[in-house]
Each structure stands twice: as C-alpha cells, then as structure tokens.
C-alpha cells in the first residue's frame, strides 16, 4: 500500500508517497510550484489558485490535489503562466498596492510573485480601491487589510497553532475580508509572539509589527536578491533576512 510511486511534472520524474499532494511531492523533489496561500506548517487551503497546474489535462490546485501515480502534471507551460499572471494581477487590483511606500516591499510574496511572473507594469484590470480603516489599536501590532489577499494564513495560524481563533473571514464574495475577534485588535488576546503575527505568516504587508517596521533596508531584503522559489519562498527563511 505505502509503496512510493512516480509521476511527472513538466517531464521531470517525481517520487511521491500515497496521500501526498502534488505540491508536497514537488517540494521534496526540489521542483518549485508557485503559491501564495499555502505555506509550511499550515493546512493547505486552496484559495489563491496561483499553484494551479494541470494534472492529466485537468486544472487543479497543486496544494490540495493528491498526486496520482503515473500522472502527467503541467506546471510551467505558457498557458499556466498566463493563468498565474491573471490571478496575481487580480490580487494586485483587488487591494491597494503601492510598493514603494509599503513596509513589506522586498519581503512580500505577492510582489515577488509578480516579479517572478514578469508583471512589472500597471495591468489591464481596473482597480477596486478598498478604503478600510487601519487598525492600530494594539500596542504591538498594526492590521491594514487594504493589502490583504485573503490567503487565510493568519486565520489558520491563529486557529490551528496559537489555538486562539483571533482572525476569521467575514462577509462573502468581493466583500469578504479578514475580521478580528472583537471590535478592534486591542480587544483580542493576540500577542506579538503568536504564530499569526510572525513575519512568515502574512505574505504581504497587512500584519505589521510596531517598532519593527522597515527592519531591513529596501534592496537588502529577501526577494531583492533572490527571486521567490523553494527555500526562499513562503514561510521559509522569512523574518531572518
């Protein structure tokens, strides 16, 4: 039953264990599949869709789809890169992203993904311009959901690791956003050393640690030097730069 099996990603043979997702197997084999909502240590969610691949011709999210023996998986084809660009552009346009003045610039996974996919200019989509109040009530933490990509990493970290469930999705559709357990962050029991607040958790610049802003000069941050990929990517080596 538990014999490892093989499948292919873009023609490269990958070994997988039963029950592994395409993403897990690819990670172990050192093949990078782009991702935003998935990160090490949290249950996969399958919401950003940036990890879309084709498994035997069917589009699936690599982070949630089990690997299948003998399957042919397409990862970096022109078609899929096109989808990924569209998805990343959608996220840019859904929120307010002014990188030059953003605390997360250079360590932001969305920005890094944009670079990786070659998105450097304003794109074809309209801007939705949310104008949500910034929550700076907490002594140590600022929450600015205007840049939120709804990846749910803070929600899962707080629920599953911190066991606090401080964050949760509120609303639906385009009005969906991240809410906190109370009228503002200061009313919650969130703490600076929670996993939800760890710099590796929020892939963008929504959750900001007060007093730690701009801790590494722009130009010397993680993705300034190396493009986003395995080991430099989500949740790995983050916060140590």
């Amino acid at each position: 039953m538990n014999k490892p099996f093989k499948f292919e990603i873009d023609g490269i043979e990958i070994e997988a264990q039963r029950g592994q997702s395409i993403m897990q197997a690819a990670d172990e084999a050192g093949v990078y599949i782009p991702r935003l909502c998935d990160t090490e240590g949290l249950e996969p969610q399958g919401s950003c869709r940036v990890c879309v691949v084709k498994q035997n011709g069917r589009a699936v999210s690599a982070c949630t789809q089990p690997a299948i023996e003998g399957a042919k998986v397409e990862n970096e084809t022109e078609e899929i890169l096109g989808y990924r660009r569209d998805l990343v552009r959608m996220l840019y346009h859904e929120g307010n992203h002014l990188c030059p003045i953003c605390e997360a610039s250079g360590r932001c996974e969305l920005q890094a993904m944009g670079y990786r996919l070659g998105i450097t200019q304003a794109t074809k989509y309209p801007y939705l311009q949310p104008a949500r109040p910034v929550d700076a009530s907490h002594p140590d933490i600022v929450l600015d959901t205007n840049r939120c990509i709804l990846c749910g990493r803070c929600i899962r970290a707080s629920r599953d690791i911190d066991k606090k469930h401080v964050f949760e999705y509120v609303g639906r559709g385009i009005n969906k956003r991240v809410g906190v357990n109370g009228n503002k962050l200061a009313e919650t029991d969130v703490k600076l050393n929670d996993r939800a607040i760890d710099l590796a958790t929020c892939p963008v610049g929504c959750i900001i640690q007060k007093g730690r802003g701009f801790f590494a000069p722009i130009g010397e941050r993680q993705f300034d030097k190396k493009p986003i990929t395995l080991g430099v990517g989500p949740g790995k080596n983050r916060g140590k730069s």
Partner: protein
Amino acid sequence: MESRIVSICRRYADDRTRLMDILLEVQRELRGIEPAAMELIARQLGITRVEVEGVVSFYAFFSRRTKGEIIIRVCDDIIDRHAGGREIAKVFVEELGLAIGTTSADGRFSLEITPFLGMSDQAPSAMVNETILTRLTVQKVRLVCARLREGTEPRDLVVHTGDGNNSHPLIRAEVNNNIRLAGEVLLCPVPANAGLRSALQRRPQELLAELEESGLTGRGGAGFPTGKKWRAAADTAATRRFIICNADEGEPGTFKDRVLLTERADLMIEGMTIAAYTVGSDAGIIYLRGEYSYLRPYLESVLQARREHGVLGKNIGGKQGFDFDIRIQLGAGAYICGEESALISSCEGLRGEPKNRPPFPVESGYLGFPTVVDNVETYCCAARIMEQGGAWFGSFGTDRSSGTKLFSVSGDCARPGVYELPFGITVRDLLDRVDAPDAAAVQVGGPSGEMINMSQFERRLCLEDLPTGGSVMVFSQRRNILEIVDHFLEFFVEESCGYCTPCRVGNVFLKKRIEKVRKGLCELEDLAYLKELGKTIAVTSRCGLGHTSPNPVLSTIRNFPLVYAVLLKEHGDGVQASFDIQAALEESRRLAKRRSMIYDPNYDEA
C-alpha cells in the same frame, strides 16, 4: 436578551455544528444578530465571536443590525425584472417611505431586494417575512402596504390560496403549481410507498444494480450517475452515513423542486429512505432554501405522518433494525449552498463555502461521514425506479440521459410553468408547448448554462447536447441580450462565496467590462479581454460556480456575435473608443474622494 439566547443555544445542546439553526432562531426572535448577541452565542458554544460573525455575515438572511418586524424582499431575477419587478420595488419604496436596504425608524419595516425567490412562473414576486406574494401589480402592492401598516400579519395577506397543496392549511400560500404537463414518472398520480415496499424486500446490492440499470443521473444540474454515487457511499467503510436532499433550488429560473416539495413530498422522502436502506444510513437532512421556509411546517407534518405510519423512524416498514430519520435544515439566502459541499458546510454550522475535493462527500461528507447529496427530483425518480424497475425508467429519454425531466419554463411565453417531458426533446418542441412564438433567445440551465439563438432551437435538452437542471428562460426579440448578461454577472458577483481569487475578483472585472460594452465604450480588443478573463475564471476557479460564471459572456459571444459587433467600435479615426472624457473626469473625482465602486455601498447615490 441573554436568557433568550442561552435558551436557544441550549435547545441545540450548545452544539457548534447547529449554529445555522441557532442563528435562524436568534435572527427571528431578536430581528438581528448584533455584536452582543454574537458574543453570547460564542460564549455559549465555546467559540470566538469572530467565528460567529463569519457565519452571520455570510448569509443574506442574517443581519448584524436589527431589522424591521416585517422584512419585505422583492425578487430581482431577470424574469421578475422583465415582468416589472423594478417598478414593484419602487412602489414599496414610495408606500413605505423607505429606501431599499434600509429599516424604518420605528422598526416596523425593512425593505430589501433578493436575487431569486423561485417564482419566475408567477412574477413579479416578493417575500414578506415568510409569506410569498406572487403576480404583483402596482395596485396589489399599494393594498398590501396599506394592510401591513394597519397591522395585518404577513400570512393574513394571502387572500386566494393556490392550487393543490398550496391551499393545505399548513401552507396556505398564494403560490400556484403551474403544472402544465404531467409525465409518466413524477407528476402523474403515484402510489404511496410502493417503491419503498419493493425495495425493502430486496438486498441493497440488488437495489444498486437496479439503479444503475435505470441510468438515472442527478437532476440538480451536474448529471452524475446516481447509482455510482450511492455505490461509492455504500462501499466506503464507516460507522455512519448520511443522506442529504438538496432542496436549495437557487439557480434562477428553476422552480420545479418547489412543485415537487409541495405535491410530491412523500415520494421524495420515500426516495431518501430507499437511499438510506441502500447505502446503510440512519440519518438524513433536507436542506430547504430559506426562501421556501413557507413549506417547512407542511414538510414537518409529512415527516411526522410518516413516522406515525412506520415508514420513517424505527424499524421502517417492519424491517427490524432499519432505522432512519430526517431533519430539515433551513438555509439563509446563499445560492452557493446549493453546491453539495457548501451545503454540507452550511449543515455543519459553517460559512457556506465549498470544501476542498477530494475527499468527495461520498467518502467524507457531513461531519466527516460518507454522505449522499441528491436533488429533490433525483430522490423522487429513485423511488419510482424501485417501484417500476430500471428498465421501465430507461425506456424514457435518450441513451445517456434516461427518464423524464421536469423543466421550469419562464419568461416570454404564454404558458410558463413546469413540464415533465422525456430527456432529449428539442428546444423548439418545448417552445411550442409553452406557446412562445416570439422566442429569440433561450437561456438553458440558468445563468450558469448557455444562451442559445433561434438557429439552435433544434438542439436537444439532455446531457449529450444541452444539459439543464431544469431552468429554461425564454426571451423575445424585445429583450436586450447584454442587459441579461450583465444581470447574470451581477448575480454571480453577489453570490460568489469569495473563497478563491478568480471567482471573487475575476467576476467583478468581467461585469465591469460588460457594463462598458453596454455603454458603447469598447473596442474589438475588449472581446479578447472578455474571452481571456472568462477562460481564466472558468479554468482556475475552485468550484462549479466559478467554472460556469463566465458562461453568460462566453456563450453570448459565441451565439450572439452581432450583439457585440454593433457595440464595439473600430479604431480607424485614431480616437480610442474607450476614452470618454466625462467618465475620465468622473473617475478622478471619485478618486479624489477616495470612494470605491465596490466597497462603498452608497456609491450610486453620491
């Protein structure tokens, strides 16, 4: 307030998975679920307030602010709109002195619009608390408002009750069945419990074989072979299994489940009971859309009568050890909860978001147990198959689509209503029956289906050609195709659960571009933009809603190219068609005020 909330929670044993029921009761008793109430519920269930808020804010029928004693919801699907629904809404606005989406200062009334009530065969319609009003006219609305102001209870607004069980004392609705054609499987007279009796004499394996022989496919739209589904659930090792009936009927233009729930409730429950016996289940759920809550007391009475007759509950049909009972789960205004895994989330007291698949519900569904989710009509067919045999059922319809199908026909035709016909009939045949000589376009399968043109009326309604869960909307030459497309996109933007990027964001962009096309501000390149964006949404979305939401655009580009051609400008003169100076100024004005079309609720009034 505290004691009321505590006692409601206790009634559900402080069970977090029953949060939907708790919220439905709190909403009804307190007319809203304010932060203090969420706090109390959270404390009682041992969860955080934001978890409760996550659920409350997901469903349209829950509100975080206190609503009026009487909530009026005017139906806004495209058929109702064409039938004058917008004017009806305006009369309510005038009569009650209330803007849409607001509550009167005295706390008496709230006025809202709702995407689809399931009454497009008797449009325009509205819902007053749980009472449905149909065929509204300006005079009727004025009268209704006058009576409500005098203190008439909503249910006493019903003067003439409808046909059949619509006049049953537990329903008393002015809804009509509009059964225009009864076929040989479902709407003909059916003997009580004949299928169940026959099934209980056979072994589950034989029943699975019978079902497979019948060729029955799911009636909810996706057309999955029912026998295969039941077998998968039966074959999954588990300590419990669940049978769920999908009575969410949210696809605009469908109302055949409403008619089955009214006239064939026994047959449907019989089918669920057979499913339980076949796969080995002891508990079932009927997920009834909130819009049909007027049917709930009646359905409860049918369940109770069946318990008393020994065809539900313990030792069913005298069969020792075969126990099966059913509860009704009311929905709260979310189209996505018709998607089977979202429906399960909702039954579990969660936000009505689809689940990641695999695992599929037949492997791990409600509370992690193997679960069969089938449509109302599917269970009705299954009961008839057990009575008459799979071969009999397979003698109706086509190769891959066996049996008869209920079609809900509405729009520009003389005889809207429900038609039971074998799968495989042509659109033209159906149009003749509904008397629609002016039909110029037909939307098959609801907004998520396909819009076809006159030259395609010979196409057949079946899985092999034009699949449909039953919705058939007829549009005459007078209708504006792009208005319809725009309206359908509005529906999807409104009803997207927001879980995944392409559906949540992409549909907004699709809608914005169609609005621009309608204003004549687009060029040929915009067609490519629409197709490309539509493809990304369809391919990368996580569930059926996103897979099909671009269909209104993609199918009309294919089938009505001229509609686009007349609106798309060519370059030629060197001036960009899409540059509209007024709009550009307008845009910067908006920017300066930092207002946002999507996020600012009062944007239109500004």
